[in-house]
């Protein structure tokens, strides 16, 4: 989404247009990820795991727990950045924005590592249905994280070079909403794919 900067002095509900837009957008995004997750769930049949590559033997829960932890921490950093922005504490705001973006990059690093491991094990996006749904779903989540990292990083830079554009706390607030949303999508993905997804499956012996 574009970082729109239309500001209305007065609205019927007293709520900010941009914030309302962001929440509506997030409601819409629920359907986007909902459909992807539904696709993953309906394909959780044995045919999804042909060629012996099943989630049970591929998913690495400890590593993913780490990356989940990192993403949760980035959310905490983001919340502190927003709080700093509302206090007009630019130094704190910069610190926590940078922290958020960095933690996001670390999360993406985990994801890249995971993808690489899967490919080495022989699971690509075309190997079987599990590969198809896994890479598509987590890939689109990763794309959202990437977009968020870019957004937040640009905001971090702008605090130096164009302070008037970032002095409005609402800008940070809205970026934060997006970032937290990406986080809660991961909470769902972590549960549905990782914790529940491999439940009841043997490693690699199907069909």
């Amino acid at each position: 989404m574009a970082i729109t900067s239309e500001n209305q002095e007065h609205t019927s509900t007293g709520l900010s247009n941009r914030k309302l837009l962001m929440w509506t957008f997030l409601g819409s995004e629920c359907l986007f990820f909902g459909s992807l997750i539904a696709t993953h769930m309906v394909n959780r049949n044995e045919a999804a795991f042909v060629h012996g590559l099943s989630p049970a033997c591929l998913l690495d829960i400890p590593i993913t727990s780490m990356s989940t932890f990192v993403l949760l921490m980035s959310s905490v950093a983001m919340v502190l950045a927003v709080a700093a922005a509302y206090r007009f504490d630019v130094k704190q705001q910069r610190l926590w924005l940078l922290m958020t973006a960095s933690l996001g990059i670390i999360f993406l690093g985990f994801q890249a590592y995971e993808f690489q491991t899967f490919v080495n094990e022989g699971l690509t996006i075309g190997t079987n249905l599990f590969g198809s749904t896994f890479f598509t779903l987590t890939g689109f989540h990763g794309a959202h994280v990437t977009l968020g990292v870019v957004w937040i990083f640009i905001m971090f830079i702008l605090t130096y070079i164009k302070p008037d554009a970032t002095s409005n706390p609402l800008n940070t607030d809205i970026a934060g909403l997006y970032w937290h949303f990406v986080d809660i999508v991961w909470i769902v993905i972590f549960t549905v794919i990782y914790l529940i997804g491999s439940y009841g499956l043997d490693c690699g012996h199907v069909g």
Partner: protein
Amino acid sequence: MSSDHKNGQHGASIPAYMLVALILIVVTALEVGIFYLDVVGELLVIIMIGLSIMKFGLVVGYFMHLKFEAPLFTYFFLGGLLLAISISLAFLTLFTNFDIGEPNVAQIAPATPTPYPTPTVVMVPVESASNIVSEGVVDTLVGGEGIFVGKGCAGCHSIDGLDGAVGQVGPNLTNIGTVAGTRISGVNAREYIENSIMNPSDFIVDGFAPVMPELMGSFKEGEFKELVDYLESLE
């Protein structure tokens, strides 16, 4: 800039955020612990969903300030969320519970491909009619040549000097006995010929369509060997 943010106090306090963060970490740890200890059995799914809803709610409510904001935001977001959940559940139900009788055949498909016995020359039910083609038409040809023409190979492959063997669908086999040995290093001519009849789709020569039928089911005793002998002799 908007009037509703003028007062600065927005959402919870810093200590409250820290408390939420702590709870989130503990819950995640709890999830992983439950996953590995494997003590809850069937309840796992329900517990996991419950815990993740809790995390979800904490992030949305505190980090995204929904708890402190105008209810309109909640309605808009929750509307999308509930709709997404309902549709996902409907999908799950439709794909699992409402199959009538017969299972999805895709699910019972064998993991390894079974050879596809072509309908072409297989004559299972009518014993008396066996091999009418080769008997009735090409009775002048015997042995490997007879099998080659009788099985319809000649429809696709040409062999110079063999009547009827003019097909252009597959490669010319006039010198197959020589050529076959050169195609894959470490595979001699006989192995190559045998394998390419057994698994035609694995041995498609560049520029030809993968249309050669599987014939193994149709050979009578000795016919396969006879055919391979014949082809190998074409040097």
